[in-house]
C-alpha cells in the first residue's frame, strides 16, 4: 500500500481548501469501506486522504416536521439509517436497502453518501433515494449546486462530481399520504453480498386507496447506472392496482431493463427476478398502505 497523508478537516470549506491545496493528488474519504480497499489494492494511489468524518453538519439525519422534508447528511452511516425508527416506519424502502448492505461492520462504517459516490451499478443505497425523488446537494470550489440523485451517475464508478466537489447531503421531499414502498436485493447469500439485481418500488394511491397517482420502479444492476423503469411506472399511474396489473408492470420493467450476463448471474434470470419482485414489492406497497404506513 502506498503511504499517504491523512487530513481531517472539520468543515466542508476546510475540506475543499485542503483539496485545492493538493488537487490531483488528494482524495476525499467518508466511511472508507470502498476507498481504503482501493488504496490497499493499489487501484487508487492518493498522496492525501481527506477524511470527511469530522464534518459535523454532514452527519445529520433530520426530518423537518413542518415541511415533511427529510435531510440525510452524506456521512450518515447505513447503521444509523437502519436503526432509525423514523426511517423504518416512514421510508421502508430505504430501511430495506441499507439494512442488507455488506455486514454489520460495513454498515457501521459505510455511509450513504459514500455508497452513492462510489457509483457501482449495484449500490443498494441509490435505488431507494431515487424512488423517493431524492435531491443531492453538492458543494465544491465553485459553490453549491443540486441535482436529482438519479442524475448523479454517468457510468460505473463515474459521477457528475467535479474535482474537489463534495456530496453534502440528500434531501427527500415530503411523501404523499397513502404511499408504500419496498426494496429487494436478490442475491445468493445473506450477508457480504452484492445484489444480482436490486428492485425498489414505491406507489402512491389516491384518497380512495384505489387508483395509483404516482409510481416509481427503480432498478439496480439492470443497467450501467441505477435506472427507473419509466414505461412501467407510466403504465401504473391512473390504474387500479391489482396483482394482474403489477404482473404487467413487472413484465414492462423487465423489458425496459438492460441486464447483462456476467459471472454473477445471467441476463434472463435477472429479467425474471425483475418480473417477480416488481410484483412482490408492489404487493408489499399495497399492504403497507393498508396498514396505514
Amino acid at each position, binding site marked *: 500500500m502506498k503511504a499517504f497523508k491523512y487530513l481531517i478537516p472539520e468543515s466542508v470549506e476546510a475540506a475543499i481548501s485542503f483539496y485545492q491545496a493538493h488537487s490531483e493528488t488528494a482524495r476525499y474519504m467518508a466511511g472508507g469501506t470502498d476507498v481504503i480497499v482501493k488504496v490497499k489494492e493499489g487501484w487508487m494511489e492518493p498522496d492525501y486522504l481527506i477524511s470527511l468524518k469530522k464534518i459535523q453538519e454532514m452527519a445529520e439525519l433530520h426530518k423537518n416536521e413542518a415541511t415533511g422534508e427529510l435531510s440525510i447528511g452524506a456521512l450518515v452511516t447505513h447503521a444509523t439509517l437502519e436503526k432509525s425508527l423514523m426511517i423504518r416506519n416512514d421510508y421502508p424502502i430505504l430501511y430495506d436497502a441499507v439494512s442488507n448492505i455488506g455486514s454489520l461492520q460495513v454498515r457501521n462504517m459505510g455511509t450513504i453518501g459514500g455508497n452513492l459516490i462510489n457509483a457501482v451499478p449495484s449500490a443498494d443505497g441509490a435505488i431507494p433515494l431515487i424512488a423517493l425523488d431524492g435531491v443531492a446537494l453538492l458543494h465544491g470550489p465553485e459553490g453549491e449546486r443540486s441535482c436529482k440523485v438519479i442524475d448523479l451517475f454517468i457510468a460505473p464508478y463515474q459521477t457528475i462530481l467535479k474535482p474537489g466537489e463534495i456530496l453534502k447531503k440528500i434531501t427527500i421531499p415530503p411523501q404523499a399520504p397513502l404511499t408504500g414502498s419496498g426494496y429487494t436485493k*436478490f442475491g445468493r447469500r445473506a450477508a457480504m453480498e452484492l445484489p444480482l439485481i436490486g428492485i425498489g418500488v414505491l406507489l402512491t394511491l389516491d384518497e380512495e386507496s384505489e387508483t395509483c397517482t404516482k409510481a416509481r420502479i427503480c432498478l439496480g444492476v439492470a443497467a450501467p447506472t441505477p435506472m427507473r423503469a419509466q414505461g412501467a411506472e407510466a403504465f401504473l399511474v391512473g390504474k387500479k392496482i391489482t396483482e394482474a396489473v403489477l404482473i404487467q408492470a413487472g413484465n414492462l420493467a423487465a423489458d425496459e431493463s438492460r441486464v447483462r450476463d456476467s*459471472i454473477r448471474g445471467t441476463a434472463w434470470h435477472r429479467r*425474471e427476478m425483475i418480473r417477480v419482485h416488481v410484483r412482490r414489492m408492489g404487493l408489499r406497497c399495497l399492504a403497507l398502505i393498508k396498514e396505514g404506513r
Partner: protein
Amino acid sequence: MNNINPDTNQEFCVIGKRIPKLDAAQKAMGRAEYIQDIRLPGMLYGKILYSKFAHARIVKIDISRAKALSGVHAVLIGEDVPDKMRMGFYKDNPPIKKGKVCSFRDEVAAVAATTPEIAKKALGLIEIEYEELPAIFDPEKAMEKDAPIIHEMHKSNVLNLPWHLDYGDVEKAEKASAFVVEERFTTQWVTHCCLGTSGAIALFDAKSNLTIHTNTQIPSLAQKDFLESLKAMGLKNKRVRVIKPIIGGGFGSKLDTYAYEHIAILLAHAVRKPVKILFDRAEEFKATSTRQPTVIYIKQGCDKTGKLTFRDMRMVLDNGAYTSWGATTPSVMMMPITSLYRVDNVRYDAKCVYTNNTYAQAMRGYGNPQATFAIESTLDMLAEKAGIDRVEIRRINKNHPGDTTPQGFKITSCGLSECIDAVQKQIPMDGPKEKGIGTGIASLIHVGGGARIYKSDGCGAILKMDDYGKVDIFTGGTDMGQGLDNITAQIVAEELGLFVEDINVVHSDTDVCPWDVGAHASRSTFVAGNAALGAAKKVKETLLAYGSKLLNVLPEDLVLRKRMIFSAKDPEKTMPIDKLLRKAHFSPQGKMLMADFFYDPDNENMGKDFKGNLSVTYAFGAHGVRVHVDEETGKVKVLDYVAAHDVGRAINPLLLEGQVYGGVVMGLGYALTEEVILKDGETMNANFRDYKLFTAKDAIRIKAPVVETYDEFGPFGAKGIGEPGCVPTAPAIANAVYDAVGVRITDLPITPEKVLAALKKKKG
C-alpha cells in the same frame, strides 16, 4: 452417552468431556503465531509472476530491468530450475515453467527483494514475449483425437492412471434388475478458502542444510519432497527441517507441496538469506488447488424388493494442466462406489484428462462428496421408479457390522442404521407436504481408522514426564485447526490419570517429532491418537511398577486418577503422581520416564484390482435436510439440517460437533453457492465477494446427533470424523429440492438459475 472406561469400569475423567480448543484464547486474542507473523533477521520477500495465457510458448524473457531495480536480490526463471525439480506424484510440474505455459496458474518467474513492494514492482519489469497456442478447457473434448496436446512428452491428454475396477457381473445384474436408473452428473471447482493464506519461509544454514517454515499437513512427506528438491539442486546429503507454524485452516489444501515452497527454497539458496513468500487472497484463489471437478455417468439398479443389484459408474476428471492428488481421488471415490450400501456387482472407470485449467488437490472428503452426490441422487431416483420409500430403500440396503464389501473392506462397527433413525426422528420424511417445502436424505461411508494409501499409514509419538507430573508429547500428527492437540492431550491425560493442562503437545517440527504420513483421511484421532495412547501405556506400565514397589500394591490393583496413584482395593495406599516421579528420578540408578511408540494400523494397501481393507474401521453417517424452494426465483433456503454420524466414541463432543458443523457448512456451500468460475482457464472470481462462501448469517442451526459404536480398534473406541460432515450434503439437498418442487438438479452448485430453468422446462 456411555462415559465409562471399559478397562477400569470407572467414569472417564477427561475422555468424553467438552474441553475447548487448547489454543482458542490465544487465537481469539491475536497471539497465535501464523506464518504471516514470522519474521527472521535479514529476511527477503519473494513474489511469483504467473502466466498471462492459458497455453502459450514463451518466446523471450527479459529480466534485466527487474534485476537492475534497487532492492532486488534475485530473479529466477524456468531456466534456473534444475530439470529434475518437479512436483506432484506424476512429476509433470516444475516450480517455474520453461519454454511453455499450460495454464494461467503457471509460474514463469520469481523475485526476491528487500520488501514485498519492491518484489512486486520487479515482477512488473519482467518482459515476456508469448506465442499463444490453441487451448482446451473441456476434459471430454480434450480426449478427442484432434485435441491440442498439452504435454508433448505424452501422446494423449489422458493420464496413464489405473482407475478401473469390475467386481461381480454388472451386465448380467443389469439384465436381471427390475428397475434401472441412469444419469449424468457434473461437479464444479470449489476451493478450501483457508482463512490463513499460504506461505513459507526458507533458509539455509552455513552448511547448506535447509530449514523451511511452512503451512503443511504433511511435515514428513513435505520433508521428503524438499530433500528431493535439494538433491536436484546438487545439494546431496543435506538435512531438511520442516517447522510448521500455527495453520489457519487445511482441509486438504496442504497435502502436497506447492511451487511457492520450492521457489522459496530456490530463492533462499540463490541469495543465502531467509526468503518468505506469502500469498494474498487473490493468489490464494488463483494459485492453490481446488477440489477435483468431475463428469459422472452412473447407472444403478435394484430388484423388485428394492435390493440393489448393481452400480456402474464412469467418470471424466478435468486434471488441469498439472497433476497433484486430485488425480488420485478416484481411489477414494471407489469406497462409496463399492461399499456405500450392500451392492455385489460394481464397475467403475475414471479417466483423468489434461486441460489448460487449474489443477486439483485433496479437499475434505477426497472425491467422496462427488461420488456420493451421484450415488445418493440416483438412489432416490431408483426408489421413486421402484415405488419404494426413499428411507426404506436405504434401510433395505444398509451395511452391517461384520460385512466384507466387494472391495474387501471389513466393516467392524457400523452405526448407519442408528444414524438413519436419528435423521428420521429429527426430520420426518413422510407425512403431508407444504407447497415448496421438501425433505432429503443421504448417507455416507468414509475411512475411519486410517487409510493405507502410502507404504506406511503410521504415526510416531514420543512421551516424557518431568518431576512435576507434567508431560511433553512429541507427535507426528498435525493440528491444523481441527483440534488434534486436544485429542492427543485428552487421550494421554486419561491414560496417565492427569488433566489436559498437564500435557504439552509438540507437533510442529520434524527435528523433534517422529514420522507421520500426514493429516488426511480423517485419520489423526485414530492413528495419532493410538500412537499417543501407545506411548502413554508404556509410561503407565513403568509408573505402575514404581508405584507397586513404593506402595506395596500389585500393579494390576493400582489406579491413576486425578494426579494420584492409589490402590483400588485400599484407597489409603496412595501418593501424588508427581511425588512418585521424583522418587523414581532421585534415587540410586534413578530414572526419568519416557517412551516412544509407532502405531501403524493393521490395514492394507489396495491391490492391483483395488481390493484390500484400506482402513481398520469405517465411519458412517446419514444427513437429513428440509428446504424451501421459491418456485418463482429458484432460490433454495435450508430450513433444518441434521447430520448424524457414527463416530465410535466422542473423545471431545465439543470439537466433534465443531467438525460436523464446519463440514456441513462446507458441504452446503458445495451444494448451493460455491464455485471457482474459470473462463477459458482464467479465474474470474478470486475474491470473497464473488466466491460465494457461506457467511455466518447464512449458516443455519445444525443438529449433530452422535451415534457411538465403540470401535474395538479406535483409541477409547473412537473413529475419524474430520471429513464425513461434507460428504452427503449435496445429494441430501438435491434430493430435498426434488421432493419440494419435482426437479432433479444434476449439476453443482444448485443455483437459483438452474432450479428456475429446470422448473420452466418442466412446466413446458
